[in-house]
C-alpha cells in the first residue's frame, strides 16, 4: 500500500515537471518578457539592466531550473499588470474559487446521487421523467447561458439574489469565507448551481446507469434470495457497488470544476482564480497564466492521487492486487 502510494506520488511529480516545462516555455513563446515590462521608449541600456535583474540573460536550462525551484516554493514571479507577486494574487483569490467549487461539487454529488438512485429504482414515475428532462437540460445547455438565465430570473426579475460578487466575506487567517454571512451565502447560490449543474446531471446519469447494472448482478439476486429487506439490498448492497465508478468521475470532475470555474466566475464576476486568469489572458500577463496552469495541474494530479487511494478504501479487491502487482 505504501509502495503503491509512493509509486503514484513519483508519477505525479513527473507530470508536474512536464507541466512546468510547458508553463516555462510560455514565457519564451509569447515574446520577450522585457518588452512587456518596460515602456516603448525605454533606452536599450535600461532594457539590458532589467533583463539582467530578472536573470533573463542566463542560459535557458539555468532559467528553467530557477523557475522550477521557485515554483516549487510557490513563487511564480511578479504579475506584469498588478506589479505584485503572483502567489499573493493567487492566494487571495483561491478561497473564493475553492469555496465555489466545493459547494458546486457537494450540490452535484448530493442531488446527483439521490436523483440517480431514485430514477433507477422507480423507473417509470413522473418524477423520474422530470429528472431525466432536467438532466438533458444540464448536459446540453452551456454554462454561461444557465448563469445568465438564473441572473435574469432571480436577480433581475425577482430580485432575490445578487447578480455578481461574493457578498460580505469573513477573514479567517489568510482564508476569506463567504459561508458565514447571509449575503455571502446568498451570493454563493446561483454560481454553485451554474457550476454544479453539469456535474450533477453527469453524476445522476452515471449513478442511474450503474445502479441498473448492479441490480441485475447475481449477488443482488442472491441477496434477494437470502430474504434481505429491499432497503438493505438497495442502499447497502447496490449503492456501495455503484459508488466505485462514481468516485472516479466525481473526483476528476472536481478538478474540472476548479479549472472551468473560469466561465462561471466571469458570468457572476466572482473574485476567484478563474476571473484572475481571464484578466491575465486579456492583458498577456504571462506569470499569472503560467502559475494558473501549474496550480490547476497540481490540483488535478492531487485529485487523481486521492481518487486512486480512495478506490482501495471502497473496493477490497484492489487492495490485494496492489499488494501483489501482476
Amino acid at each position, binding site marked *: 500500500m505504501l509502495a503503491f502510494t509512493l509509486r503514484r506520488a513519483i508519477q505525479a511529480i513527473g507530470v508536474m515537471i512536464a507541466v512546468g516545462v510547458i508553463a516555462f516555455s510560455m514565457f519564451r513563446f509569447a515574446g520577450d518578457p522585457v518588452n512587456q515590462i518596460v515602456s516603448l521608449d525605454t533606452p536599450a541600456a535600461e532594457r539590458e539592466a532589467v533583463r539582467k535583474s530578472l536573470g533573463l540573460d542566463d542560459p535557458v536550462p539555468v532559467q528553467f531550473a530557477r523557475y522550477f525551484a521557485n515554483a516549487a516554493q510557490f513563487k511564480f514571479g511578479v504579475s506584469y499588470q498588478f506589479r505584485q507577486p503572483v502567489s499573493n494574487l493567487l492566494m487571495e483569490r483561491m478561497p473564493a474559487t475553492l469555496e465555489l467549487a466545493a459547494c458546486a461539487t457537494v450540490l452535484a454529488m448530493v442531488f446527483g446521487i439521490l436523483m440517480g438512485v431514485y430514477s433507477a429504482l422507480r423507473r417509470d414515475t413522473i418524477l423520474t421523467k422530470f429528472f431525466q428532462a432536467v438532466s438533458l437540460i444540464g448536459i446540453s445547455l452551456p454554462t454561461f447561458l444557465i448563469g445568465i438565465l438564473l441572473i435574469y430570473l432571480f436577480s433581475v426579475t425577482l430580485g432575490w439574489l445578487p447578480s455578481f460578487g461574493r457578498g460580505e466575506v469573513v477573514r479567517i487567517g489568510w482564508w476569506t469565507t463567504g459561508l458565514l454571512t447571509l449575503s455571502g451565502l446568498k451570493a454563493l447560490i446561483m454560481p454553485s448551481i451554474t457550476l454544479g449543474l453539469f456535474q450533477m446531471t453527469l453524476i445522476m446519469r452515471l449513478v442511474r446507469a450503474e445502479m441498473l447494472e448492479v441490480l441485475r448482478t447475481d*449477488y443482488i439476486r442472491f441477496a434477494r434470495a*437470502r430474504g434481505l*429487506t429491499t432497503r438493505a439490498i438497495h442502499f447497502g448492497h447496490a449503492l*456501495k457497488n455503484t459508488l466505485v465508478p462514481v468516485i472516479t468521475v466525481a473526483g476528476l470532475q472536481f478538478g474540472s470544476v476548479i479549472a472551468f470555474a473560469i466561465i462561471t466566475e466571469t458570468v457572476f464576476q466572482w473574485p476567484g482564480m478563474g476571473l484572475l486568469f481571464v484578466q491575465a489572458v486579456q492583458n498577456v500577463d504571462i506569470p499569472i497564466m503560467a502559475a494558473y496552469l501549474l496550480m490547476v495541474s497540481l490540483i488535478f494530479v492531487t485529485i487523481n492521487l486521492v481518487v486512486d487511494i480512495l478506490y482501495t478504501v471502497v473496493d*477490497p479487491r484492489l487492495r490485494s492486487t496492489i499488494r501483489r502487482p501482476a
Partner: protein
Amino acid sequence: MTVPVLSVRNLEVEFLTRRSTLRAINGVSFDIAKGEVLGVVGESGAGKSVTGLAVIGLIDPPGRISGGEIYLSGTRIDHLPPEEIRRIRGKRIGMIFQDPLTSLNPLYRIGDQIVETIRTHLNLSETAARKRAIDLLAEVGIPAPDKRIDAYPHEFSGGMRQRVVIALAICAEPELIIADEPTTALDVSVQAQIISLIKRLGRDHGTAVMLVTHDMGVIAETSDRVAVMYSGRIAEIGPVQDVVQNPLHPYAKGLMGAIPTLAGEDKRLVQIPGSMPRLSAIPPGCPFNPRCAFVFDRCRVDRPEPLKHGSHAVACHLFDTAPHEAPKETAA
C-alpha cells in the same frame, strides 16, 4: 402420510413479451418430502431454473406465476404479498445459485454478509450472530472459520465460495433448499465435495432439497427422486434408480442414452435429433413429438398428462392405459 415440505400443483409461469405471452412453465406438479432430494434435469430452457425461482418467489416482471399453487409445509405461498414472501426467503427456503464467483457481494466481508442474513431472519445479537456464522462456516467445511470470517469473497477459491454460499443458504435452518446448478461452475473434484456437502446437510438437518442441474451424474449421486423436464413440463418423474436404469419417456430414454460410460465401448454417444422448441413455437400435443422416434397421430394433437406407471409418473401416450384407448387396442 405427512405433509410434504414442498408441494407444487399445476404451476404455470408466463413471460409477457411485446408480441405475445410465452408460457415457460406449463402445468408442473411435484412434491418433495422432508429430507428428500429431488433432482430436476432437462436441457437449457426446459424450465428447471424458472421452476426454482417461482417457488422462492423471485420471478421478476415481465414474468409472472399465472396459475397453479405452491405449498410450503401445507401453507400456500405463491401469492403472498412481497413482504411476506421475503420473510420466507432465506428463512424457510434457502437458495444456492450457479456461479459462486458472482453470488457474493465483492465489497463486503463474508462474515458481514452472513451476519446480515442471520440477523434479518433470527432475533440474535451481533455477537451471537457472529458466533453462529463461524459455526456455519465450520459446518460447510471452511478451515479456520474464526479467521476466514473476516475475509473478502475474492480471497476464496470457487469451491470455497460455494461453501460460503451454502452457509448463507442454510443460516436460518430452512426447510427447503433450492440448489440451482450448484456445481456447474466448479471443476470436477470440487463438484464431488460440494455434492456430498449438500447431501450431508440435507441428511443432518432433515432439509428437503430441490437440486436443479443438467448433470445426470450429479443427480444419480445425490437425489432420491428425479424429475425430467422438457419444454416447461415434467416428462417423467420417479425414484432415481428406476428413472436412470429404466427410463420410460422417449425423451428420458434419449437423455440417459447420452450419458457417456467408462465401460470403454467405442460407440458414438446416442443423441436426440433436433433441439427443444422455442417457447414461441411449442408444437400442439406433446411438445416432444417432432423429435420422438415413437411418435403417432395422437401425439400431434393431444397433450399427454403425467400418469402413474409403476413407480414412475410419465407424460407419454405410449404408456397411457386409460380406458378410452382400450377399444382401439382390442380392435387392432
